[in-house]
């Protein structure tokens, strides 16, 4: 049985198609990155941290939204690691979970009953569908 981190790592690698072991840690991706200063964790760190399983940290970081997906790092990486794809995959794991949690407009009528305030459902939908 894989634990949660291993599952997440496996999922991220599968989604991105990236093999982080190809990274030779030259940092050219981060040297290239136009969003570097905006990001708490930088492209090379994404590759390294996914490899070491430090994924929760990345998921909780704003950095996943700061990546511009400009793919400059993908273009310039000398080893063909494609860091932007791994950033995208980490981001997707977060977004997909949100997607599973939020309500769609069609689901709401079925959930209405006398006990539940309608506003609760509506705000839940609005809040998580963003």
């Amino acid at each position, binding site marked *: 049985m894989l634990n949660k981190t291993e599952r997440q790592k496996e999922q991220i690698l599968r989604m991105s198609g990236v093999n982080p072991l*190809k990274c*030779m*840690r*030259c*940092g*050219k*991706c*981060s*040297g*290239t*990155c136009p969003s*570097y*200063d905006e990001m708490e964790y*930088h492209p*090379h760190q994404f590759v390294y941290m996914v490899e070491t399983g430090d994924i929760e940290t990345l998921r909780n970081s704003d950095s996943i939204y700061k990546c511009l997906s400009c793919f*400059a790092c993908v273009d*310039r*990486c*000398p*080893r*063909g*690691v494609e860091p932007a794809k791994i950033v995208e995959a980490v981001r997707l794991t977060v977004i997909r979970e949100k997607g599973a949690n939020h309500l769609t407009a069609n689901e709401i009528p079925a959930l209405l009953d006398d006990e539940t305030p309608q506003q609760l459902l509506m705000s839940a939908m609005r809040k998580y569908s963003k």
Partner: protein
Amino acid sequence: MQRIGVFVCHCGTNIAGTIDVKAVAEALKNEPGVVFSTDYQYMCSQAGQDIIKNAIAEHKLTGIVVCSCSPRMHENTFRKTAAAAGLNSYMVEIANIREQCSWVHKEMPVGTEKAIILGKAAVAKVNLNAPLTPGESPVTKRALVIGGGIAGIQTALDIADAGFPVDIVETKPTIGGKMAQLDKTFPTLDCAACILTPKMVEVAQHENIRIFSYSEVSEIKGFVGNFDVTIKRRARYVKEDLCTGCGACTEKCPQKKVPNEFNLGMDNRRAIYIPFAQAVPKVATIDADYCTMLKTGKCGVCSKVCTAGAIDYQAKDEFVEEKYGAIVAATGFNPISMDKFDEYAYSQSKDVITSLEFERLTNAAGPTAGKLLRPSDGEHPHTIVFVQCVGSRCAACAEKGKEYCSKICCMYTAKHAMLTRDKYPDTDVYVFYIDVRTPGKAFDEFYRRAVEEYGVHYIKGMVGKVSPEGNKLKVQASDLIAGKQLHIDADLVVLAAAIEPDKSARPLATMLTASMDTNDFFTEAHPKLRPVESPTAGVFLSGTCQGPKDIPETVSQAGAAASKVIGLLAKDKLTGNPCVAHSDENMCNGCSTCGNVCPYGAITYEDKEFRMPDRTTKMRRIAVVNEAVCQGCGCCTVACMSGAMDLKGFMNKQIMAEVDAICK
């Protein structure tokens, strides 16, 4: 029918301890062809060998089987024994009943039974053995060195000093190669020209060395000891024997706008030129692509100023044919093209240069007379950024870079950085590295001195982008240790470009039937044990054509290659391995499959006339094995569908007889 003698060795108790040797000798007596069988304590001893010799004479043996230790131990011993008794030494087979029987099995009945079977297999093989005589071929005592850089120079000098004539073929007008373009050499910082040019002069003056400069190899035929080579001497329009190298023509030539390749295009030369002051041979060459006289028929200035009368506008390419016993490839390297590295703005800014260009910029004989000046405006640069591993260790894109480490860049970058800080202490020098690799005598100390004594800023991390802005180069890079992105306004950016084998190496390898790896480096015969030989016999490797290496390594490899060549040329005749492939011309159908798999290019094809049963004749294509080149792997015998190709000493029939004997 053979008359076979069987000799079973006790090897003390090594064999006799687990094998009933008497029973083995007894059992093998009944095998077909066996007329004599005995056992003895130590067959390899003088007394044991005498038993064999006597038996050969007494029983008129035509073949012998020795049941003893591994053939890797004593096959040669017993072959010599047989030869001493007048028996062809290839009529000897060994049954390995020690390493592969008595030592790995514990029970006497089991070991004895297996030993008998192994003996039977050896007898079955000897029954089909035929006497073999190693082929002999004469050796032409002359060597050809292709490439006149430091590798070729050193190899040629060492061979010539041993007393053998050597020819050097160099495509450029002068020998000297890349080393002639360098300024100083790491880690001792002696000047490249000071140590190279005396060697060049020595080559020029050596009675055993001929230099074919401005020439290339156009055809190679033959094999080890007997290569026939055609050398194309390109027309240089100057008679080498008459030109004194005075240089008058190169000063008067009106065509002044020819990019000077020796300075990597950073300045210009004339259409008639001598690459540099210490060129060897010091002879002028006319560049036909630029010479007005050759292009339009109008000019002739050089001819007028030449007091020696050496100019010859009518010159044509000439072809020289020569025989050689050995060939050394020393074709060297080039930095890769930086055109594909847009992110470093190499093609956008003159102030982004390669390390080799930097060498010329700091060389006293270079375009700036040794002053470090920016190529764009001739200003002194105050901030210099060195980028390592540009195109090296690049697995992402084969068109862009090379997967391997170029090996020399870490050291020359440290050298450049150190020299810059030494000469211009007001300069800020940054080196961006992935890893600093300094295995070598006094190498790491050298690099540390650059950091500790000269204050070079070493930053771990790659440069991501260089963009020209005004007269500055904006360098954006990551500092992986500080976790920062750096933005540096640099005046000069120096790229440590990966090195690749010279383009002439691939066609040369094809001519030599020498193998190459995917990067076009020549493959060595064995990566550890035969590093300076090509798998193709008689072809040797010197310098960077085999893989990236620095000057000390190149020189030691050049010397090693020379010693191998000397070892070959010192022989009057080459004795081959008689266990080579042989094609039965009556069965060969000329399909040419065998040639595809031969690692040595030992198989050629020819049309041969055959007499048919109806008295007509018919031409048929057949394979011919060059026994001097074949090494006897047998790969072709399996590729051959007709069964025409067979391997002497390991014939299909023999191996199948062994199989039958074992499976009986």
